[in-house]
């Protein structure tokens, strides 16, 4: 167990250090969520006046939850880019040789992605509150929302890590990014589920991300929250993609 923790700590520290000290990694992670928040909450605020749109905390809070979960997910995807880059540079292969417990490598990357997601969440919260976002949920609700963002980040990290371990090239970037982008945008992004129409409504009803986004919105507006469904689904997704990532790690080991 101590070997696992040693590897986890070392990989996480290196990844976080690279993230924090390299503006090319750090700035896009911060700027993009802020930009999406500005574009969606600012540019689309009159969508909140559509008949049938009834979100107590207002359109800014409605969009904030989506951007928060999107930023958390993309933090995980960017971590996948980092894993692929480590393979291209040969560092990951040396790491596989040196690490006494290779599961610690995956755990280290996941821990770094969590730290990264929490940094971005804190910044997003600060900007949203400073610009007048209304929060109707209490402290427990907000903690639950942050926990949900952390689970989304873990899911995306394990998905992207699984792709990165299998392909071991940064050219697989679109294969990590596009599915996450598409599955996020096929949830109710701009309006609640009941105001969606056409094929997007059908797909959104089947999309598991819909439950996560709507659960997050319930939390920020202090409304009744079906925790069992939302956290059950989030944990199931984490478990599913953790298996995907571990099997990917085994494939990377086998590839040598």
């Amino acid at each position, binding site marked *: 167990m101590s070997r696992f923790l040693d590897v986890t700590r070392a990989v996480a520290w290196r990844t976080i250090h690279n993230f924090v000290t390299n503006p090319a990694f750090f700035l896009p992670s911060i700027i993009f969520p802020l*930009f999406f928040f500005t574009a969606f909450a600012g540019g689309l605020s009159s969508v909140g006046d559509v008949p049938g749109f009834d979100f107590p905390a207002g359109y800014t809070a409605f969009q904030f939850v989506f951007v928060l979960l999107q930023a958390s997910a993309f933090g995980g995807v960017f971590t996948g880019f980092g894993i692929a880059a480590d393979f291209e540079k040969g560092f990951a292969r040396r790491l596989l040789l040196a690490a006494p417990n290779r599961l610690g490598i995956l755990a280290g990357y996941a821990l770094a992605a969590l730290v990264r997601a929490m940094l971005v969440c804190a910044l997003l919260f600060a900007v949203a509150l400073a610009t007048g976002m209304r929060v109707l949920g209490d402290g427990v609700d907000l903690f639950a929302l942050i926990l949900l963002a952390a689970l989304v980040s873990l899911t995306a990290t394990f998905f992207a890590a699984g792709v990165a371990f299998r392909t071991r090239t940064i050219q697989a970037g679109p294969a990590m990014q596009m599915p996450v982008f598409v599955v996020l945008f096929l949830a109710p992004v701009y309006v609640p589920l009941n105001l969606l129409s056409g094929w997007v409504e059908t797909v959104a009803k089947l999309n598991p991300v819909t439950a996560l986004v709507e659960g997050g919105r319930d939390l920020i507006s202090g409304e009744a929250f079906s925790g069992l469904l939302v956290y059950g689904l989030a944990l199931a997704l984490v478990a599913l993609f953790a298996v995907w990532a571990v099997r990917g790690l085994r494939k990377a080991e086998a590839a040598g």
Partner: protein
Amino acid sequence: MSATLVSQVAQMARRSILQTLRQPAMVIPPIVFPLLLMAINVGGLDAATKIPGFPADSYLDFAIAVPFVQGALFAAINAGSSLARDVETGFLKRLAMTPMQRAALLLGNLSGVMVVSFFSACIYIAAGFIAGMDFAAGAAGIPALLALAVLIALGFASVGAYIGLRSGSGEAVQGFFPLLFVALFLSSMSLPRPLIEQDWFRAIATWNPVSYLLEGVRSFVITGWDGVALARGFGVAAAIAAIAITGASVALRNRLVRT
């Protein structure tokens, strides 16, 4: 244009078009991604048509303008990356040893992405009609819309060419893409400017030239022949193209200096 220049443009254009068509990564994303984003937005934002004052009954009629501009952003990246690769591989340095004229090199290099842009615009129009778009300008509006789409693509491709020639780095060109994406999102892309509630956002959208490109394209679909919207759309696209081509020519002259 002299016969020599025409011949040189044709040679460079042939190379550029073949180079573009042989790389699926330069052809598929400009067609697929804008249509995908539009399809998602049409389903997600259809309720916006219920906002009093919204200019169309269907959000598709409003949103169909976005792929034309988003496709042009891909043209910028493709043109820039292609020229940056020519700088990185030393192709431009070798060309500097020949009697090739600068204009031929630039025009020829832009040809490949312009061909993709033209076909992308045709596909956007076809996809719009298949999805049930009402096209207010009638049949005569289609060639005019294609002309505007190609002019917009030329403007952005020239911006990409300027960046590619100036930086000489494909990575720098790719890094510029988010900025172009920001310009698209901070425009009247999702709602008409009068319906944007936040004053600061409406002010940015009003100053943002991308809004006028979108509104020019949109006018063909929603209002028919709207002189003001078309004058602004064609005018802004032509201005971007003129400024960027001038900048790219200067950057190319500096790149081709014989040392």
